[in-house]
């Protein structure tokens, strides 16, 4: 969406664009006007007008922008649905396996459902329509009302979800507040009204659960002794009355006889309501039943661990409750990819839940019974879940506060990695600093450090790398940005804007007094087994020359040939020289796509691939017609010619390839070996994330 906003630009930029367009049209048609001898003067006038225009977007313009945002969003969703439908029809027509047909039909249904769901674009459109005063045209005002109502509906839905959880947790006050708010947001909503009725019912049930006071025949003298603090256990004579047993157990506890009191409460734990639950509540207290606390914590940990192995964090947290959300989590846990790939991966990695309850219970036990029968058991569990960090509570003894310990990546100024090829491409002015960093390494890592205050003596500074002079540093950043803008370089981040933003951040840091350093950087060594397990668990991994990505039901491995950077760390901007030829070797294996391997090679104007699938060899040729006609920015048209024994080269494969090609103009073309795997392989190889 950001790009849409940028594309639209401010009135000034639009006026500039208009001026340029007019100038181009004029110059192309050779137009002449009286008193204005050439097009250059006309263009200059337009430029001047554009620069003088300082007006902000008018309300009708904003309304128009909002409508266009929604129109584009609808078009994108329609296109997506059309593509899914076409793919399903293609598979049916070619007699694909039932599994593939079912999978395609499922995708179509998901596409239809997506149509009904609110999107981020609605938020963007709403922002364009705000403020929504009387200056908005009627259609804009109507659109605002519609979007605003939907936004309120979403908030109400969120409130209902939270209220439902609050009801489950018996937090009735909170639930009522949330539902009242949901009703204000969406007056008359039936869902909210029904939940309010449910809440009222649950509150009444809960009230009824509170036992009411009554007087037994023997009660008064005993209660008088209790409340005045003069009751001893001996005063409670043994009777068949179970309530007296509770009083006796309480008296024992009041006198510090924990074991005897625990036995008393244990004997009552099975008693009917309200005595049983009351006794059980006391047994849950660590000061009464430290053994029980440890046993319950260990049991809870084991259950969570089992659920976590099956369905990860979501199932571990919600798997034991009895709600629709929990049902959803269970349902999602039984997908093929989870059972086939993620579950074994979690087992291999030894997934563990949060061990804090066990840690606390074990510590309570050791505190109360350091030599008790379960002491060894408690210690073994502490070994397993971790003993408490001795520094964790260090703050209690002294102040000022320690430094923030978390590594907040968001706050860190991220480095940029530049390959030797990019430096030698001629688009970057050589500097001794950069060459020193590249002396023994294929790439240089550029990072900004702030000089410490007060400035330390030079020999005390322990920063790695070679510092740039300020002017050289800024020139280098400018040249790298220009290379990215002009497609002289390729970059590792998703979009050109994201890559440029990283450079801008470094530039801003220089402005704030930072110093740019360059140090040698080499890609990490390949650890194939570690890569596979990381990919299985986390979805992607990139170590050394091999990039791996796991989809819902397949895994792709790609090696980009001749790539100097090879393994760019995740979320770091890596810049490499743009090569005329780009070649990637790939292999894939999947439940619906089968297995295959091959290579893809492409230039900006042609792409080809050769592969071997389960059905035999195949070849493909991609002709980026849109690029040939220089219209790919608006219409990324391309033709894909495939030859092979596998009948499942559907139009979606080409469509995806075209979409990716339009974003990264130099990516290798799809080899057409499978609908999902190779397309991802191609984009993966080209972006190196």
């Amino acid at each position, binding site marked *: 969406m950001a790009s849409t906003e940028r594309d639209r630009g401010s009135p000034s930029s639009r006026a500039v664009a208009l001026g340029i367009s007019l100038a181009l049209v004029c110059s192309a048609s050779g137009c002449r006007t009286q008193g204005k001898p050439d097009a250059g003067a006309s263009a200059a006038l337009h430029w001047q007008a554009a620069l003088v225009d300082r007006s902000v977007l008018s309300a009708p313009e904003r309304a128009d922008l909002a409508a266009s945002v929604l129109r584009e969003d609808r078009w994108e969703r329609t296109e997506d649905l059309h593509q899914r439908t076409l793919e399903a029809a293609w598979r049916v027509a070619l007699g694909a396996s039932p599994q593939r047909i079912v999978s395609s039909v499922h995708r179509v249904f998901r596409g239809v459902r997506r149509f*009904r769901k609110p999107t981020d674009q609605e938020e963007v459109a709403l922002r364009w329509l705000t403020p929504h005063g009387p200056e908005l045209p009627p259609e804009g005002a109507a659109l605002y009302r519609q979007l605003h109502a939907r936004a309120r509906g979403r908030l109400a839905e969120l409130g*209902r979800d939270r209220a*439902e959880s609050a*009801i489950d*947790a*018996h*937090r009735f006050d909170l639930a009522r507040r949330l539902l009242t708010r949901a009703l204000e947001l969406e007056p008359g909503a039936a*869902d909210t009204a029904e*939940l309010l009725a*449910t809440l009222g*019912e649950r509150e009444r*049930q*809960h*009230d*009824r*659960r*509170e*036992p*009411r*006071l*009554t*007087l*037994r025949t023997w*009660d*008064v*003298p005993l*209660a*008088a*002794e*209790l409340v*005045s*603090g*003069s009751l001893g256990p001996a005063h409670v004579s043994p009777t068949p009355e179970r*309530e*007296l047993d*509770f*009083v006796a157990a*309480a*008296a024992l506890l*009041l006198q510090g006889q924990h074991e005897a009191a625990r036995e008393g409460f244990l004997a009552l734990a099975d008693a009917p*309501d*309200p005595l049983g639950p*009351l006794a059980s509540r*006391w047994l*849950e207290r660590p000061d009464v039943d430290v053994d029980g606390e440890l046993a319950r914590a260990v049991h809870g940990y084991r259950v969570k661990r089992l659920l976590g192995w099956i369905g990860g964090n979501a199932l571990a947290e919600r798997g034991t409750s009895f*709600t*629709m959300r929990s049902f959803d989590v269970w349902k999602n846990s039984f997908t093929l990819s989870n059972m086939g790939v993620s579950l074994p991966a979690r087992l291999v990695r030894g997934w563990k839940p949060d061990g804090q309850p066990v840690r606390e219970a074990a510590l309570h036990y050791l505190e109360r019974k350091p030599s008790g029968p379960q002491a060894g058991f408690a210690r073994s569990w502490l070994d397993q879940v971790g003993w408490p960090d001795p520094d964790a509570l260090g*703050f*209690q003894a002294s*102040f*000022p*506060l320690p*430094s*923030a*310990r*978390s590594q*907040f990546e*968001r*706050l860190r100024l991220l480095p940029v990695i530049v390959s030797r090829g990019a430096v030698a491409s001629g688009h970057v002015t050589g500097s001794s600093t950069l060459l020193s960093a590249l002396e023994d390494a294929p790439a240089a890592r550029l990072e900004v450090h702030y000089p410490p205050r007060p400035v330390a003596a030079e020999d005390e500074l322990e920063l790695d790398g070679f510092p740039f002079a300020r002017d050289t540093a800024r020139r280098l950043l400018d040249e790298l940005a220009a290379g990215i803008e002009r497609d002289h370089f390729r970059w590792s981040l998703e979009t050109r804007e994201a890559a440029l933003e990283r450079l801008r951040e470094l530039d801003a840091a220089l402005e*704030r007094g930072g110093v740019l350093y360059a140090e040698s950087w080499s890609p990490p060594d390949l650890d194939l087994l570690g890569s596979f397990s990381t990919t299985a668990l986390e979805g992607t991994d990139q170590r050394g020359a091999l990039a791996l990505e796991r989809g819902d039901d397949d895994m792709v491995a790609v090696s980009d040939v001749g790539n100097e950077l090879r393994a760019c760390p995740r979320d770091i901007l890596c810049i490499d020289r743009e090569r005329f030829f780009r070649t990637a070797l790939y292999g894939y294996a999947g439940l619906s796509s089968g297995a295959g391997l091959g290579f893809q090679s492409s230039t900006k104007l042609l792409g080809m691939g050769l592969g071997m699938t389960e059905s035999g060899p195949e070849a493909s040729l991609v002709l980026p017609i849109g690029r040939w006609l220089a219209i790919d920015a608006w219409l990324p048209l391309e033709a894909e010619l495939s030859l092979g024994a596998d009948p499942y080269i559907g139009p979606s494969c080409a469509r995806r390839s075209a979409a990716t090609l339009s974003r990264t103009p130099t990516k290798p073309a799809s080899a057409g070996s499978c609908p999902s795997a190779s397309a991802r392989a191609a984009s993966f190889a080209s972006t190196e994330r």
Partner: protein
Amino acid sequence: MRDRARARICLLPLVSSLAAGCAHGQSDPPLLGLSVSISDLQLHLRDDPYRSFNQLDGDGQNVFAVARWKIERFQRERGLLPDGWQLEDYVLELAHARTLERLHLYRQAIDAYERVAQGPAPMAAPARSSAQTLQRFAALARPLPADASPDEILAEIDRRIAAWTEAAEQMTDPGYASLAREEVEGWERLRVHFLARERGLGDAIDAYEQLVRHHAESKLHPRHLIELGDLHAEEVRDIVLWARAQQEALEGTAFESHFDSALAAYELASEAPLPMFREEAQSRIQALLAYHDGVMNGVY
């Protein structure tokens, strides 16, 4: 989405009614004898209200508030005036007074104790003793003068802190000592907020750091850390606003140090065992980071 919500709504009453049916076969509330209720209350009275949240039950309700409600209902059902009270009524009133003092309602607790002190001997003695203690508490909890200047208010707050501290040290009954410590903590928190309002954030931060040191064993310790983090975060916002208005760079200001302190305080609070504090601290961390992003991108 609406379908899902409807399905949930349909399922919820079913589930709840099933659960209710399984758990409570009867429609009338269960009955519990006075002795059992009193013994339960006595057990809770052993808890240290300053250090622990044991007075909260599994549903997050304050057991003393629930006990007070039940006792008052029972008293209303009996409908007897003190002149006509029997032994059980004095028992109920003494238990009532205990719940009131744990809810910091000292004046009402004194009244209840004084009524019990008129009754039979076994209960009259402890009631008189408690009333005497609570007279001191009630005097220290009296409202601040409305027409005093800020300096006078601050001096009065300091006097109260000193007096409550002295009371906490002098109490031989651990329950009352714990209550007094809660009061010291409450007045110190008030002092910090008063300083923040009247003297600026710098003094308030210093005072809060002292408070955190004094009350390291308090059950509210994570809460103090969150509030200390809030003060640092407020200082960060203050610095940003001044820098923006005066077209100054943030470098060279205390922006980074306050930001780091706020983050550190929230981090420490997020290690608290109670989920309530953990969640609050984590959301504060996210909010602070979002603010930081905004500052770095010139949003503010």
